[in-house]
């Protein structure tokens, strides 16, 4: 009576687009790596040294870990946690307070475990609260911007905006400046977290739900995966990553201040922008449902390489921040082009 109309009218173009959507971003990133590498070898002094590469990965590790946490938020369609540096700030202050004062009890002064747990709990708490409001239907931007103000304010208030010092030797040195097997501990932590995160996303039900809810919240609800619990979990993961990075950074500096992550951090200025840039440069979809933490990790290393190159070339921080900004714009344009291509047939 009627012929069954199958979809094979344009298998080539659709497959082509899909293949390239998956591979091209990665290919672009890798070829940029290569270009930079070659350029570095020939035109930059002191580039091809083990010390330099260790420095690159070490730089990447700090914001890379936070970016991996943020990737869960972005993939699940909850946009961004904009209170990244403020969460890190209050957790850093908490950790330093623990190390320096033992939260008022002399027995606990310098107790690494208690300070660490306190900092992580603050991270969990702020993640759960912000996730709760987003899960209830709040706009992630508004909620986490509000969260940013509150978290930063509490940290600054608590520490009277002072630098909290704790003297060496202390129990956190192994995390701050120590190393294992020739690699700084923070680098090792980055590698382990990156592997774990990728395994979770690929091979657990939770990981699958992150993608599904991110791809379509309404369909997620219809198939029994609510964004409510999802938002709480991903914001908590992200905040805990922030707390961990804050602890490592504070352990390295032997001190904390509430504005460490805005002005003093690293070389490229604002922590939040740097982390968001990492997620974007890796090629994760802002709208959610598409991407991976592996991409984010590569993005982190890429940004660290660019930054490192600019440092060796003698640029100061202004132009380097411009560089990060340009990378965000570029990656969004490239991703936008490919995302458009694959949706052409909808």
């Amino acid at each position: 009576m009627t012929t069954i109309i199958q979809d094979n009218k344009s298998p080539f173009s659709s497959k082509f687009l899909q293949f390239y959507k998956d591979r091209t971003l990665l290919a672009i990133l890798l070829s940029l790596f290569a270009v930079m590498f070659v350029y570095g070898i020939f035109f930059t002094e002191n580039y091809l040294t083990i010390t330099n590469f260790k420095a690159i990965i070490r730089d990447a590790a700090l914001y890379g870990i936070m970016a991996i946490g943020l990737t869960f938020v972005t993939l699940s369609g909850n946009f961004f946690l904009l209170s990244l540096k403020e969460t890190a700030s209050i957790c850093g202050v908490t950790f330093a307070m623990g190390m320096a004062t033992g939260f008022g009890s002399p027995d606990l002064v310098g107790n690494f475990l208690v300070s660490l747990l306190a900092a992580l709990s603050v991270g969990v708490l702020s993640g759960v609260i912000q996730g709760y409001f987003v899960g209830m239907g709040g706009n992630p931007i508004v909620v986490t911007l509000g969260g940013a103000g509150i978290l930063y304010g509490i940290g600054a208030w608590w520490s009277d905006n002072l630098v909290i010092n704790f003297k060496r030797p202390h129990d956190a040195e192994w995390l701050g400046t120590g190393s294992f097997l020739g690699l700084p501990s923070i680098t090792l932590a980055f590698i382990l977290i990156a592997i774990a995160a990728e395994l979770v996303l690929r091979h657990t039900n939770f990981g699958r739900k992150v993608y599904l809810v991110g791809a379509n919240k309404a369909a997620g609800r219809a198939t029994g995966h609510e964004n409510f619990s999802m938002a709480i979990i991903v914001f908590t993961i992200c905040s805990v990553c922030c707390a961990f990075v804050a602890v490592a950074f504070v352990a390295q500096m032997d001190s904390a201040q509430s504005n460490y992550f805005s002005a003093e951090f690293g070389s490229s200025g604002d922590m939040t922008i740097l982390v968001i840039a990492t997620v974007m440069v890796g090629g994760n979809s802002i709208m959610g449902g598409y991407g991976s933490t592996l991409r984010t990790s590569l993005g982190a290393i890429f940004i660290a390489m660019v930054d490192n190159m600019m440092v060796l070339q003698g640029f100061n921080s202004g132009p380097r921040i411009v560089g990060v900004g340009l990378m965000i714009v570029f990656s969004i344009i490239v991703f936008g082009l490919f995302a458009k291509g694959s949706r052409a047939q909808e």
Partner: protein
Amino acid sequence: MASDPVLKISNVSRTFGAIQALKEANFEINEGEIMGLVGENGAGKSTLVKIISGFDPGFKGSYQLNGKEVKFDTPSKAEESGIAIAQQELSLIPNMSVAENIFLTGAKVKKFATLNTLSKMARPYLDEVGLTDIDPSTRINLLSVGEQHLVEVARLISREAKILILDEPTAALGELESRRILEMVQRLAKNGKSIIYVSHRLDEIFKITKRITILRDGVSQGVQETKDIDVNKLVEIMLGRELANMFPSRADHISLESKIEVKDLWPDGVLEPVSFSAYQGEILGLSGQLGSGAGEVLASIAGALKSRSGSLTLNGETFLPKSPSQAIKKKIAYCSSDRKKDGLFLGRPIFENLTSPALDTISKFGFNLGSTEDSYAKNLAQEFLIDVKRVYDESGLLSGGNQQKVALGKWLSIKPDVLLVNEPTRGVDVGAKSEIYQRMRELAARGITIIFASTDIQEITYLPDRVITFYRGMMIDEHRLEQIKTPVILKEITDPFNETNL
């Protein structure tokens, strides 16, 4: 009839890829005439409307306006020539006043104007559509939906539209509001406007039109004089007869073992609590127009829509699901009418879509290593006639029919006791339609209770074992097996209380 038609379309065809939406359509309308345009879902009504209003320039055939051949590349070009369309989804800006909305764009927009002058300018147009009691400075979102429709039309008139297309203007409206729309249409026609009235509500078509153009499978079935035709004849022309065999044969009897009992369910959009039960292994159809409450009842059984009261009894348990996930736990699956909105994860591969409701069954302790899922998804795909080689493709790349098969097929993964389907074949080509009907019948034969809601009169007549009819939020009647007759159902879902004297 003696005058030449103002708008005449002849031998128009339109294809989208492999699908032929219009094969051979002819259409004409005279000055001051109300022309009804009817046809099933997918018969090509909306394609024809898009062609007339300039949204779709990619057609073949002749389009004449006042005897001259024309071609509109954009809707605004058509509007300049006096052809305007009021779509189902209104394009009003809710936070602006009535007057501002009327003069949002078009030749009459002034560079500087106070709300006061705009209000004065808007007055005559509002009077013309019958909104005499509305202050033009009122904000749009304070008006009822019906009034908003009237404002939309007033806006079109202000741009000097000669030919107005109204696409299902009363679909979301109650009786009183619908009546206002009909009065407006008749008034406008008296003032010399030509009106193309597209509607599923046949009572309205008979009440206001002079002539009716009927579309079936993309072919226009000639123009009928309204006074020479009755509902039965119209439906017969709309459906054609030869299509009936795309439906699998019914069960020969209805099991009397009740599977799910719905008691006093009362979702929004339904006037009074609804109670019915569905039997083991039957296909139960809920029939009604958009807004009749059939779809709402279905959604609230699945926990997707809140119900004010009531309970379900399934497998000896009595409960009321508050969310889809609760319903899924009780083995109730619900496939919504809008697969792009909440039926599919378009950006994700097909296999992920197929296993999405049943992640627990394809994993061990929360870990999913892929092999179980792979075979599981492929089985489902095979069972629902989806190309197994394509399960790794993005589901957004599939055609409407195949998408619908994925949206429906994924629910088999939870081994449901009750399968609820809202509009099982909306936007689906005929081939896939018949496959979906076949699958539904097989699932029912396996003992799954299927309840579906549909506005498609053909599928309501031929697919289910039992039909319950709904009209404007009320349950009207129930029919079984051989007693399911198109004219009876059509009457019950359009005009059960003899409000029109057909």
